[in-house]
């Protein structure tokens, strides 16, 4: 069987035409760096760009030489050319707060913002992060200040949970649970159990026993306060979903040439296909190559054995054998992905000896993203087999 040849991901075309680029992938694959490098490259090719990161570890700040990122886009200093690059880190809670203030009925906003359930929901609920990232994305897009918005998603599968947001809200709103929870609030906040209809009493007594009457009261008030703004929420979630599906959006899946990371990449690729979301392609990060691939692993090992242990030539030969074997393993893993997904365009970024934390480093990653590295070196996968 001949090695599959994936189409090459044309990053520059994507950066010229897209209005939104969403980077997703497993943790630890260099997603944040990829997002920053894409954004910088687009900016230096003349576009007005903003890059949005969600990561609490402030990795984007590190890789862009910024010391502080808050919920406001800040200009990145040192960008060359006529374009512009802003960077920002998502502040989940304040994004949510703004949304509440905008959509709540007059006078209701405070009741929501001070409710303990809201405070927990807006600052710690796992799904809120993805949801608010997408909210921020559409806000940034709507300002008209930017030609391109690049988003870095959280390092989990749930990065795509926002795709379910409209559905979640609808199910929740239409659910009977909400109606039960709303009952006491609608009755004017009187003693909880008395106002509930007989048909629901089994349910509520169980619920009260389990979570406690106090919690139930807070929850009930929270849901009642939120109810008024759910319509607005739902509309927005739907609008964001449509925006992501529209031409002009490009999803870039990022992976490292490792088994688990490529498995996650396959999951993302398949999920995006199911949702009919526009996939630009796969970035395989931190790929190892050797300029001395003509000297095979076997030959290097055999030659090293003929030399005194620890001698310079012997050490360099062993080092070369390690590197070539690693490159071969990586090539085979990627080949496996390409066989399963032959239509997904791919581009590779070479492993750098150190981490990227300045604009020069990001530019160099950007060059690789634009295809500086030959995609499938002749026979590499077979060579080290």
């Amino acid at each position: 069987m001949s090695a599959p040849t994936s189409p090459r991901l044309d990053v520059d075309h994507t950066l010229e035409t897209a209005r939104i680029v969403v980077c997703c992938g497993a943790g630890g694959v260099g997603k944040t760096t990829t997002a920053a490098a894409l954004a910088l490259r687009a900016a230096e090719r003349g576009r007005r760009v903003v890059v949005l990161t969600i990561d609490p570890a402030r990795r984007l700040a590190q890789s862009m030489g910024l010391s502080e990122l808050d919920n406001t886009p800040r200009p990145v200093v040192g960008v060359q050319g006529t374009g512009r690059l802003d960077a920002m880190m998502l502040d989940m809670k304040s994004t949510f707060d703004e949304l509440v203030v905008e959509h709540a009925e007059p006078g209701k906003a405070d009741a929501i913002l001070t409710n303990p359930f809201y405070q927990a929901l807006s600052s710690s609920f796992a799904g809120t992060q993805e949801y608010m990232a997408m909210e921020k994305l559409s806000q940034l897009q709507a300002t008209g200040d930017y030609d391109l918005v690049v988003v870095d998603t959280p390092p989990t599968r749930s990065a795509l949970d926002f795709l379910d947001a409209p559905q979640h809200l609808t199910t929740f709103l239409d659910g009977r649970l909400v109606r039960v929870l709303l009952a006491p609030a609608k009755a004017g906040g009187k003693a909880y159990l008395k106002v509930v209809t007989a048909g629901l009493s089994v349910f509520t007594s169980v619920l009260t026993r389990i979570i406690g009457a106090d919690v139930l009261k807070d929850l009930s008030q929270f849901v009642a306060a939120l109810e008024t703004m759910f319509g607005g929420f739902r509309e927005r979630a739907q609008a964001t979903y449509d925006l992501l599906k529209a031409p002009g959006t490009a999803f870039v899946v990022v992976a490292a040439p490792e088994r688990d990371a490529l498995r996650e990449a396959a999951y993302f690729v398949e999920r995006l296909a199911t949702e009919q979301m526009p996939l630009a392609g796969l970035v395989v990060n931190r790929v190892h190559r050797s300029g001395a691939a003509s000297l095979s692993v076997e030959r290097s090992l055999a030659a090293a054995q003929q030399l005194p242990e620890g001698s310079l030539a012997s050490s360099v030969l062993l080092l070369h054998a390690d590197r070539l074997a690693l490159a071969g393993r990586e090539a085979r893993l990627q080949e496996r992905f390409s066989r399963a997904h032959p239509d997904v365009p791919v581009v590779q970024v070479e492993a750098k000896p150190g981490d990227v934390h300045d604009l020069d480093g990001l530019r160099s990653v950007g060059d690789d993203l634009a295809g500086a590295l030959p995609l499938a070196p002749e026979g590499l996968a077979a060579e080290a087999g």
Partner: protein
Amino acid sequence: MADFPDVRLHVVTGKGGTGKTTVAAALALALASDGRRVLLAEVEGRQGIAQLFDTPPLPYEERSVAVAPGHGDVVALAIDPEQALLDYLHMFYKLSPNGIPARTLRRMGAIDFATTIAPGMRDVLLTGKVKEAVVRQTGSGPVYDAVVLDAPPTGRIGRFLNISHEVSGLARVGPIKTQSEGVMAVLRSPQTAVHLVTLLEEMPVQETLDAVAELEGLGMPVGGVVVNAVRTPRLSPLQLEEAGAGRLDTAALADGLAEAGVTAEGDLLVALEQEAYDHAQRVALEERGRDALAGLARPSYELPLLPDAVDLGGLYALAASLREQGMA
């Protein structure tokens, strides 16, 4: 003598991509040596344990996945919040998962609500199940000699473990508060140790330092640092120094290669020099990472990079290494 003789709950966290699931599994195997019984639990629905032990996806059920040297036993459990809730209702409220109240709760969407929408509840359920396994007794003593938790990554570990804070605003009194306080008491006790897995790369090292500071601030017992995927330098310290400074003795290299029958001229020689330079850079970076981690003054363990993806044989080798180094 192992470094954590009194610890019964080992929480393993680390930045994504550092191999925390692999380390958790190796630690479980190491702890299970000499006839002990260890539970290895995961909470993120990734089925990472099943993939590692090459078994079908784990149900919400404790089942043996590996035997350890000396008739030890590793039992695995993938904790699912919905099942944990039903379990909890059964245990504390005598509600059968198939009885009318539980079915009603499910039909009303309350189970969904509690496990996916209600903030903080999910983590109380997950850590609650872990705590239950830690304290579970048979007539003669604890069911498990140790429990190893493959926990969420460093970015979320503080929030995940600090559950009483997460629910304190929600439940000032009542069963949820009682439950979360019970869990918290175990998590903060000397029975628990939170271990951090890292690579010798800048960002994982930085996240490890940040996580240790956060956990200490929360009063969580920090255990050891496991440095994963360590490579032994191929060059001697002197060779590394020369290669890193671009002063590699190319004449000696070419002579040596020629002696072994490799004609290395021009491009090939330059490429080999480049590889030596990259290697020297990388080793220097690793040394800086090691120095930074040494500043934590925590017990530290190193595991070698395995040449291929980790399989069961590799896991046993890593477990043996952890035992030799005294982690278990």
